[in-house]
């Protein structure tokens, strides 16, 4: 057999050759240092190519794609119009994120809250608890349905080193969850119901609690009291609520009570923001 061409060598490296031809190329590789170097270089560039795109797998899937996968027939699904989305992207970032800036009204509300501390009086006396159901008919139903998927796919990955995150607007104040043993790791922008939203990732050394994901988005409409949802697949618990034109959720594998306490803290902090 003559010296293998690049095409045969690459097919060999890809495991695509029959036994006989594979043995012949293996023999060539034993005898020919130049061919070995060539094979090593091709293998290295293939590994680099994989590495260059593998980080895409660790990124959160944008909400609009989750909605598109569910299809327009899904209850409450919001598939972003591509033309509108392109137009929105063309606008300056500062306009899109202006709601992150603490408005005077919110500051006034925060002023009323300061000194009260974390109090259940700020929240409904009895939170609404729903089971593992879908299509509740509530405005935020679709938003909540997608959260366990996001959590399972990305919160765990976000706990590891080397994960890349989006840059937060300078004027955005990240909720401090250190009292709960949670360390802020980073944030990602996603689309929720056609609006930009943010996923905030927190990690903890306590494996029994697991990482926690907080979602914050813009949501014009009426306020909603906290609702609980448990998803058996992955054992994810979610508290979601709406307040002052924003939609919020906190998700994790921690128990309902632990997350409820965090939800209280977040509601307090976000109202302050």
């Amino acid at each position: 057999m003559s010296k293998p061409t690049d095409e045969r060598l690459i097919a060999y490296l890809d495991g695509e050759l029959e036994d006989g031809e594979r043995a012949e190329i293996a023999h060539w590789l034993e005898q020919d240092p130049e061919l070995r170097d060539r094979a090593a270089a091709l293998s290295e560039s293939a590994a680099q190519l994989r590495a260059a795109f593998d980080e895409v797998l660790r990124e959160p899937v944008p909400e609009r794609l989750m909605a598109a996968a569910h299809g327009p027939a899904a209850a409450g699904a919001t598939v972003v119009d591509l033309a509108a989305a392109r137009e929105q992207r063309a606008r300056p970032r500062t306009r899109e994120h202006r709601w992150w800036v603490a408005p005077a009204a919110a500051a006034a509300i925060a002023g009323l809250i300061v000194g009260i501390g974390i109090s259940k009086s700020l929240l409904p006396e009895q939170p609404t608890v729903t089971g593992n159901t879908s299509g509740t008919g509530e405005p935020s139903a679709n938003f909540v349905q997608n959260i366990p998927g996001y959590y399972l796919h990305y919160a765990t990955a976000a706990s590891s080193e080397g994960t890349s995150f989006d840059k937060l607007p300078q004027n955005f104040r990240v909720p401090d969850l250190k009292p709960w043993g949670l360390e802020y790791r980073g944030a990602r922008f996603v689309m929720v119901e056609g609006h930009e939203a943010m996923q905030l990732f927190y990690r903890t050394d306590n494996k029994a609690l697991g990482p926690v994901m907080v979602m914050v988005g813009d949501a014009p409409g009426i306020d909603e009291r906290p609702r609980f949802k448990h998803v058996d697949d992955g054992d994810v618990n979610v508290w979601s609520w709406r307040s002052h034109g924003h939609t919020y959720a906190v998700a994790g594998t921690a128990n309902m009570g632990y997350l409820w306490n965090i939800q209280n803290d977040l509601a307090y902090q976000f109202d302050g923001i």
Partner: protein
Amino acid sequence: MSVSISDQLIAVLPRMRRFARGLTGSAVEADDLVQAACERALTRAHQFQEGTRFDSWMFRIVQTVWIDQLRARDTRREEAEEEGVHLGTDEPGRRVEARLALEEVRNALQDLPLEQRAALMLVTVDGLSYKEAAEIAEVPVGTIMSRLARARVALQAKLDAGRGLRRSTENVKADG
């Protein structure tokens, strides 16, 4: 119990995004492409043959939609909207270097013809067999083999050239 097409779509979304990123070279365009592919898949769900691979079907749709879009519109990249990697100034030097190296690989891929990019993304990145990639591209296995070989050799040459250029620059700096 059969899995719904939406559930299968959600499961394959990350790989579709990766494939689309390789085809388009843009995070924004890749997600637009995946969204369009999802919409097309849902409207043509009846065309999916039970017992065949759903991921292969979706890869074929992604590629077909992309080719349709290339034919239908100006393919000028919206570079200003590119949501690429953020290189923070406080990022450790080695991580910056690693990111630049990966960016170089992605850029080199974009210099290749579309059919070669697709072959690389399907086989080298996603790990599909030549036969599976050939079915997605709707070409003979031999065609995939030759496309891959040309692509791998060209990619290798581009990366070697980039390294050579960097070495020359470093030598000039060292001499200076």
